[in-house]
C-alpha cells in the first residue's frame, strides 16, 4: 500500500504508452510526445514526476487543455491525461474536432461514464484517437501513506452538517479511485454519530455495488480491508495544536502546497530559493527528517551541513588528474547536494525565526498541558497569564481559549472568567468566534469523555511511562508533544479488533450482511483512514510511525479532504454557516 508505487505505475503507464502505428511499423518515424493535462491532473503529475523523468520519455512539451491558444503541430503525438469532468470533456471534444496534434492517446484519471465515451467517439471524426484508458488517480499523493483531495470545507459542504451535491460526488469519486488504485474492496466503517460520515459511507458503498462486476472484482482477501471514515469534528484538538515535526511545521509556519514551499515572504531570501519543491519521493534528506521533531531536526541538519562541508573540502584539493576525474564525475551530485543543503537551511532558519517572533514555545507548552491534563489549576493560571501577555498574537490567545473551553466544559466558572478576559483582550468578532466554537463542540465532548473512561489501563500505563521518560531524559520534545491525536487510539483498537461496532458502524461490501458475525472476528490487515474535514501532517506522522511498528501486520493509508494547519482549521470553523 505504498502510494508512491501507485503513482509511479500510473505515470509510467501514460508516458511509455506506445503509438499504435509505430508498433506495427518499426521504421515509422518516432514522434515527439506532448503531454496534455487539465487543471486537475497537472498537480497530480507535478507531485509525482520531475521534468527530467518526462524528458527521458521524450515528452518535450507539457500543455494544458484549457489553453486554447496552443500551436498546431501535427507531427506530435499527444498523450492526454485528464479528469473526466464535464468541463474538461468539452475542451477535449473541441480539441478532437480540429486536432492540433497528429495522434491522441487519452487517459482518464477516474471512471468514465458510457455517455461521456459516446460523445468522445462521436467527435473523433478524423480517427485521431488511438487509445482510451481509465486509470485511477483522482487524488493527490503527498507521502507514501498520505493522500489529500484538496477540497476545502466550503467547497463540499452546503451547511455545517450537510454535503453539497457536487462535493459529495466529488468526494465519493475520489475515494472510489483511491480504492481502485490500491485494488481494495473494503468493509466500510464510519463514525455513526456523524451524518457526514454516514452519507459518504453509503455513497461509496453504493458506488462499489454499482461497479462490482466491472471494476471491483478483485480476488477475495482472507482479511477484508477496512475503509474507516471519520469526521474532523470528533477530534478538533489535534488540528488546533502547534505542531513540532518537520513536515507539519513547514505546513504551519511557511505553507506547503502540493509539495511546493513558498519562501518568497522570508526576509533576505536568495532568488533561487523563493519557491522550492519538497518531496519525500525525490529528496532523501527530507524523507529521513520529515517526521523528526524540531530538536532532532536541528541535529540532522547540522550533520548534513557537516558532511557537505567535508565534501567541499575534498573537492577543493584537486591536485592530480585522478582528483579532477572524481570531481567531474561527482559534480552533478555535488551541485544537487549544495542546492539541497541551502534549501533545508533556509527552511529551518525560517521556522526558527517564526517560532521566536511568535512566542510559539510558550504558547505550545500551555496548549499541550491544557490538552493533555485534566483540569489543572496551574495550567489555568498559566493560561490567564499568557492571555494578558501583550506580546502574544491575538490569534493564539483565541486558540488557547478554544482549547481550554473544549477540555473544560463542565467548569463553567472558569470558562466564564475566560470569557471576561477574552472580552478585554480580543475584538468582538473573536469573542463571537469563541462562543461559536463552544456551541459547535459542546454536546460532543461527552461521547469522547465516556470513551476515555473506558480506555484500558494500558494507555494509562504508557502515559505514565512516557512522563517518567520525560523527567529522566528531560528533553524538550515531550513537553511539546504530550497530546496524542485520537486516531492513535483508533488504530490501536483496530489492530486489536476492539473498535466499537456501535460507534463505528459497518457496511460490508463483500458479504452484504449475511455473515457479519463471523466476519467481525478478523483483524483487518489493510486500512484506509479518511477524515472528512481534513487531516494534519502530525497525524500523518503518527500513521507513518504506526506502520513502522506494525511491520506489515497492518498497513494504514491516511487521507483527508484537505491538509490542515491550525489557521486553516480555525478559518474553516469561522466559515461554517
Amino acid at each position: 500500500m505504498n502510494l508512491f508505487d501507485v503513482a509511479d505505475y500510473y505515470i509510467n503507464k501514460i508516458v511509455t504508452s506506445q503509438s499504435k502505428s509505430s508498433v506495427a511499423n518499426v521504421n515509422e518515424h518516432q514522434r515527439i510526445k506532448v503531454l496534455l493535462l487539465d487543471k486537475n491532473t497537472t498537480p497530480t503529475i507535478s507531485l509525482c514526476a520531475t521534468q527530467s523523468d518526462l524528458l527521458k520519455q521524450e515528452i518535450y512539451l507539457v500543455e494544458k487543455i484549457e489553453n486554447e491558444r496552443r500551436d498546431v503541430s501535427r507531427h506530435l503525438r499527444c498523450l492526454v491525461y485528464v479528469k473526466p469532468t464535464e468541463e474538461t470533456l468539452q475542451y477535449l471534444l473541441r480539441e478532437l474536432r480540429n486536432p492540433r496534434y497528429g495522434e491522441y492517446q487519452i487517459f482518464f484519471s477516474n471512471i468514465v461514464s458510457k455517455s461521456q465515451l459516446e460523445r468522445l467517439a462521436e467527435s473523433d471524426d478524423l480517427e485521431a484517437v488511438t487509445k482510451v484508458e481509465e486509470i485511477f488517480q483522482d487524488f493527490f499523493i503527498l507521502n507514501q501513506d498520505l493522500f489529500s483531495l484538496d477540497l476545502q470545507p466550503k467547497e463540499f459542504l452546503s451547511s455545517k452538517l450537510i454535503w453539497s451535491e457536487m462535493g459529495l460526488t466529488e468526494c465519493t469519486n475520489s475515494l472510489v479511485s483511491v480504492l481502485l488504485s490500491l485494488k481494495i474492496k473494503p468493509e466500510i466503517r464510519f463514525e455513526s454519530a456523524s451524518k457526514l460520515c454516514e452519507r459518504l459511507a453509503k455513497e461509496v458503498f453504493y458506488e462499489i455495488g454499482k461497479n462490482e462486476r466491472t471494476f471491483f472484482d478483485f480476488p477475495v482477501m482472507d482479511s477484508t480491508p477496512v475503509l474507516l471514515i471519520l469526521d474532523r469534528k470528533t477530534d478538533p484538538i489535534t488540528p488546533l495544536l502547534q505542531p513540532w515535526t518537520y513536515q507539519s511545521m513547514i505546513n504551519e509556519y511557511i505553507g506547503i502546497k502540493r509539495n511546493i514551499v513558498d519562501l518568497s515572504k522570508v526576509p533576505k531570501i536568495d532568488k533561487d530559493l523563493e519557491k522550492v519543491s519538497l518531496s519525500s519521493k525525490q529528496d532523501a534528506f527530507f524523507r529521513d527528517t520529515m517526521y523528526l521533531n524540531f530538536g532532532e531536526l536541528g541535529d540532522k541538519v547540522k550533520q548534513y551541513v557537516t558532511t557537505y562541508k567535508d565534501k567541499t573540502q575534498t573537492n577543493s584539493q584537486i591536485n592530480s588528474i585522478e582528483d579532477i576525474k572524481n570531481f567531474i564525475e561527482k559534480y552533478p551530485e555535488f551541485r544537487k547536494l549544495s542546492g539541497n543543503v541551502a534549501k533545508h537551511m533556509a527552511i529551518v532558519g525560517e521556522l526558527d525565526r517564526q517560532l521566536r517572533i511568535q512566542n510559539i514555545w510558550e504558547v505550545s507548552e500551555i496548549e499541550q498541558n491544557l490538552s493533555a491534563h485534566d483540569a489543572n489549576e496551574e495550567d489555568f493560571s498559566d493560561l490567564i497569564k499568557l492571555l494578558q501577555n501583550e506580546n502574544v498574537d491575538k490569534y493564539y490567545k483565541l486558540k488557547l481559549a478554544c482549547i481550554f473551553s473544549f477540555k473544560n466544559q463542565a467548569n463553567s466558572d472558569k470558562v466564564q472568567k475566560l470569557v471576561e478576559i477574552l472580552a478585554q483582550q480580543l475584538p468582538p468578532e473573536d469573542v463571537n468566534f469563541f462562543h461559536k466554537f463552544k456551541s459547535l463542540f459542546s454536546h460532543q465532548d461527552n461521547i469522547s469523555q465516556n470513551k476515555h473512561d473506558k480506555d484500558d489501563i494500558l494507555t494509562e500505563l504508557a502515559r505514565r511511562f512516557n512522563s517518567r521518560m520525560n523527567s529522566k531524559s528531560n528533553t524538550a520534545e515531550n513537553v511539546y508533544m504530550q497530546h496524542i491525536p485520537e486516531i492513535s487510539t483508533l488504530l490501536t483498537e483496530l489492530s486489536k479488533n476492539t473498535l466499537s461496532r456501535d460507534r463505528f458502524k459497518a457496511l460490508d461490501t463483500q458479504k452484504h450482511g449475511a455473515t457479519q458475525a463471523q466476519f467481525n472476528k478478523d483483524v483487518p490487515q489493510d486500512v484506509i483512514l479518511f477524515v472528512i474535514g481534513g487531516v494534519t501532517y502530525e497525524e500523518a506522522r503518527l500513521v507513518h510511525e504506526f506502520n513502522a511498528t506494525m511491520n506489515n501486520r497492518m498497513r494504514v493509508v491516511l487521507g483527508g479532504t484537505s491538509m490542515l494547519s491550525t489557521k486553516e482549521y480555525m478559518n474553516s470553523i469561522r466559515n461554517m454557516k
Partner: protein
Amino acid sequence: MDLENVSCPICLRKFDDLNALNVHLDVEHGFDDNEDSLGSNDSRQVNNKRKNPNYDGNKVQKLKRSHWEKLQRGKSRCHTCGRTLNNDIGATNCRKCGKLYCRRHLPNMIKLDIYAQYDPTNGKWHNCCHDCFVAKPGYNDYGEAVNLTHDFFKIRNMQKEDKNLRLLQLENRFVRLVDGMITLHQKYTGSIIYNLKMKSEVSKLERTVTPWREDRSVLFCNICSEPFGLLLRKHHCRLCGMIVCDDVTRNCSNQINIGYLMSAASDLPFKYYRQKDDLLHAPLSIRLCTQCIDMLFIGRKFTKDVAMPLSGIFAKYESMKNISKVIDGLMPIFEDSLNNLKLKTAKDSENVLDYKNLNDLARLRQKLLGSVNLYNTLTRQLISVEPRSNLEKKLQSSIKIASAAYINEKILPLKSLPAILNPEGQKTNNEKRQNEPEIKKLSQLMIENLTIKEVKELREELMVLKEQSYLIESTIQDYKKQRRLEEVVALNKNLEELRSRIRTVQSKLGDNGFK
C-alpha cells in the same frame, strides 16, 4: 482475576475465557511447538487432548504438518535473522511453507485450509512468515486500469458509416457544383452577356445541386442562432442549403474562390482540375457554411499534415533518434567487454593483455565517441533551426536539456577506458620489459601518435571548419540564384582556403576523424 475478560500477554487480543486464551497461545504464538517439531509423540498426544475440547470434538481435522521443517537443536536457524533457534528466542514453523523461524520473525497471520494452502474464505487463521504473507494473491496489488480503446472504436465505427454517407453526399454536390460552374464560366467567357447569363444559370445550377431552405421559414442563423434582420442578412449555404448569416466575427459562412477550394480538395474527381490555378483569378466563388467547410476540409488538411514529411526540427530530431539508437545498441557491448577486461586484469595481472580484444575495444570506443559527437552536433543544429512557432521554441529548449543529460550519461563509461589501460600499461611496463614495444604500439593504435588532448582539439577545429564551409557553400548557392556573381567569386576563394585547412587537419587526424 476476572476470568471473563482475559487478554493475551503477547498480542493483547481479548478472550472470553482462559481456555480460549490457551488455544490462542498454542496456535498463534506457538508455545507448544518446540515439542511438536521435536517429534515427541507423548507430549503431542497430551497436547491434542488438551486442545480437543476447544475444537469440535475429534471431528476437527488438524492442519497438515508433514511439510514442517524439523527442529535440530543447535543447528536450525531462523530463516530471516539466521540466529540459532533455542527456547529463548523460540522456534516455530511457518504454517504455510513449513520453514522454521524465531518468534520475532513470524509476525503475520494468514488463513489456511487443513492442507496448509491459502484459503481466504473458509480457512482458519494461522501464523505465517513474511514471505508467505506477501505472496498471497491480491496482496500488495495496485494500479487498476481499464482499457476502453476497444469500446471506443466500436462506438466510433458504429457512427462512421452514417457520417461517411453524409460526407460522400456533400462531396458529390461539391464536385457537381464546381464542374457546372466552370462549364458555364467557359461557355460565357468573352461574351457580352456574361454577367447577365452567368448569374441566372449559376443560380439555376445551385438549386439543382441541393434544395434550398425556404427563406420565410427561417428566423435564426442555423449556426450562431442569432435572429436575422436588416443588419444580419440571410444566405444559403450552396452545399447543404441551410440558411446562415455572414457575420464576420462569428464566421458562420464564407464566400470562397473555386480555385482555392479545388486545390484544398485535390483528391476529388473534378473535371477541370488542371485549370485550377487559372481559376484562382476568375470571379467564381461559392458560399459555404462553416459546418460544410469543416466537414469537407478539416479532415483533408489533417491527413495531409500528418502525412507530410518531417521538416525542420522534427527531421533533425529523427536523425538524432537514429544516432541514439546506434549508441544504445553499441553501449552494452562496449560495457560488457570493458567489464570482462577489468575482470581479467583483476584476476591475473601477470597475464599479458589480450591485445586483440583491446584493439576491438578501442575501436568500439572510437566509434561510440564519434556517434556521441555526431549526436551533439545534431543537437546543436537542431537548436539553431529558426523556430516557426512558440511550440517549436519550447521543444528546442527541452530537447537541448534532454540531449545534454543523454550525452553526460553515455560519455561516462567511455571515459573510463583510458583509465584502465594506462595504469595497466605502466604496471606491465615495470614488471615485464619485453612487453614495452607492444604497449607502445597499443597506445599508438589508440591515438595515432597524437595525445588525446590533441585529437580533441583537432576534432573541434575540424568540426568548426566543416560547419563554416557548409555555411559558405549554402550562401554561394543563394548568391548564385540571386546573380550576385562578384561575391560568389570572393566566397569561392574563402571556401578553397577552408577546404585545404580541412584536408591538412584530416590527414593529421587520420583514422581518428569522423566517419
